[in-house]
């Protein structure tokens, strides 16, 4: 029971609707992601005790912090949380040292100063102890906030968009520092971020939120390649989400046959969908292989599709190609290839091109009306 795990279930209908449940194990980093207004920050503030949901239960390390049925609602002071606020919310009249010391009230008075210096050193701020927040850069302020959150020896660390307020270079540096710092931390860490790349890079698991509801929880790679439904697929910014009808299953070859508006595709075996069922399906851009112009290769037999290049956008090393697929109701397939490959194959707007969809990467999802297909 007392294993340091954080478990959260909250629900309410008014103000900011919530219907969320997640767990986070000791030492685990869980990213709460979703569009603005999806209730990420509200959820985090519920854990910290700064907001009280209408219904719910929140427990950490065997202690119940909130149980609306039993009328338990511990104050933020009674909950052992460290929270890094979006704008850091440092105390502007106190030095970096004073900010950290403010959260050391639970330790003996004579040890606080040394502990605060130690914490500041651990976030690479040694020598800046006497600076006020206004005299520190954005990245340094974030580090003070991190040290202050850890000062309480919290049983859970909550990070509310901690990288949103700094420039890109600083953000990458802070990302590395968090990844490094994590190894020394044994408590559950919940990171709120709207940045999917950040979540994928830092989190052990990610939790997709939409209008206060948890839609899917899982390892980032799984969520981003095997979304639970079309809505999740859209929220994790998958470009290739289409509609199709299941034709049948072949247990021998471990394939499911799919009809994509007239184009027949082999997909990863998904026997839970009945033949004839209308489904949504997706494929990661990395699993779409551009056919070579000069000499065909064997891989081209796998789900070949042909069409006309409608978009061609070179961004540094990669080129994103939008292929208007012949048949398939002119759906727009998006794939990404190295820029030199696109150039060698003469990819340009209006040029005919072919591609293969790797069957194993085609992922089927239950049909929901929310699907907006690539065809525009």
């Amino acid at each position, binding site marked *: 029971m007392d294993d340091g795990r954080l478990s959260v279930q909250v629900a309410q209908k008014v103000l900011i609707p919530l219907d969320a449940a997640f767990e986070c194990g000791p030492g685990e980093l869980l990213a709460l992601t979703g569009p603005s207004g999806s209730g990420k920050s509200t959820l985090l503030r519920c854990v*910290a005790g700064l907001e009280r949901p209408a219904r719910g239960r929140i427990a950490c390390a065997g202690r119940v912090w909130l149980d609306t049925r039993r009328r338990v609602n511990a104050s933020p002071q009674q909950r052992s949380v460290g929270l890094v606020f979006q704008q850091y919310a440092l105390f502007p009249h106190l030095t970096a040292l004073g900010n950290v010391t403010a959260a050391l009230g639970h330790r003996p008075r004579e040890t606080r100063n040394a502990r605060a210096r130690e914490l500041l050193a651990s976030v690479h701020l040694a020598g800046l102890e006497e600076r006020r927040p206004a005299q520190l850069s954005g990245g340094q302020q974030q580090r003070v906030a991190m040290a202050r959150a850890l000062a309480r020896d919290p049983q859970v660390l909550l990070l509310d968009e901690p990288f949103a307020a700094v420039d890109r270079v600083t953000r990458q540096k802070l990302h590395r520092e968090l990844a490094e710092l994590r190894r020394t931390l044994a408590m559950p860490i919940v990171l709120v971020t709207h940045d999917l790349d950040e979540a994928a890079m830092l989190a052990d698991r990610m939790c997709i939120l939409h209008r206060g509801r948890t839609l899917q929880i899982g390892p980032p790679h799984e969520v981003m390649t095997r979304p639970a439904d079309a809505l999740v697929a859209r929220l994790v910014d998958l470009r290739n989400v289409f509609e199709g009808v299941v034709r049948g299953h072949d247990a021998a070859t471990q394939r499911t046959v799919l009809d994509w508006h007239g184009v027949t595709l082999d997909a990863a075996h998904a026997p839970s969908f009945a033949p004839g069922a209308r489904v949504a399906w997706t494929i990661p851009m990395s699993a779409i292989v551009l056919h070579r112009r000069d000499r065909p290769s064997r891989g081209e037999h796998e789900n070949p599709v042909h069409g006309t290049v409608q978009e061609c956008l070179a961004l540094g090393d990669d080129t994103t190609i939008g292929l208007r697929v012949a048949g398939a109701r002119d759906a727009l397939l998006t794939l990404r290839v190295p820029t030199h490959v696109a150039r060698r194959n003469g990819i340009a707007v209006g040029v005919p091109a072919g591609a293969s969809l790797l069957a194993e990467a085609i992922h089927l999802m239950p049909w929901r009306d929310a699907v907006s297909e690539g065809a525009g």
Partner: protein
Amino acid sequence: MDWQALALSLKLAAWTVALLLPVGIVVARALAWRRFAGRRLAEAALALPLVLPPTVLGYYLLSAFGARAPLGRAFEALAGHPLAFSFAGLLAASLVFNLPFAVQPMQRAFEAIPADVRPAAACCGMSPWRIFTRIELPLAWPGVLSALVLTFAHTLGEFGVVLMVGGNIPGETRTIAIAIYDRVQAFDASAAGLMAAVLLALSLAAIAIAYSTATRAEPYRG
């Protein structure tokens, strides 16, 4: 020069400041952060002394202090003398007409504290009292101080309400502003001029103090 009137004015101002400091902070914090029904109405009622003619305010206060009103009757039963035309009555009136001068700057100061700073303090494990003394008060202090100085200066100079509620009893309710009026009525221009100059100097000093503390507190507001 009526030294007794000056001393009385200073005493009245000191008492007003001392009592309005805690009251003002409580009211200002509530108006700054609490969301309750009738908050706008409370704010409007609080600002009323700023726009109401002093004679109107004085008239209503005098009615409330009279032996026929509940407040006046209760006070007389307890203290043994009427509230009207006494120092206590003057102080009560002074508290009322100074409320906006005390509350408004304090409210602005508390409102200026960044939104997440207090929740952050709670998440640091600081008790509500500790948050008040270590975080809120130091951050709001320039506003609180200027509120107190304004209240002090304003009490020294108030005339209409004092005349209505206190009358002109030497040593009890004759403040320096009343004394000036009194001297002018008696064609004693030199005494009136001297007292006016003293009042001017005091007010100027008070404002100067308020401004200088406000600017010195600036640096950490980034």
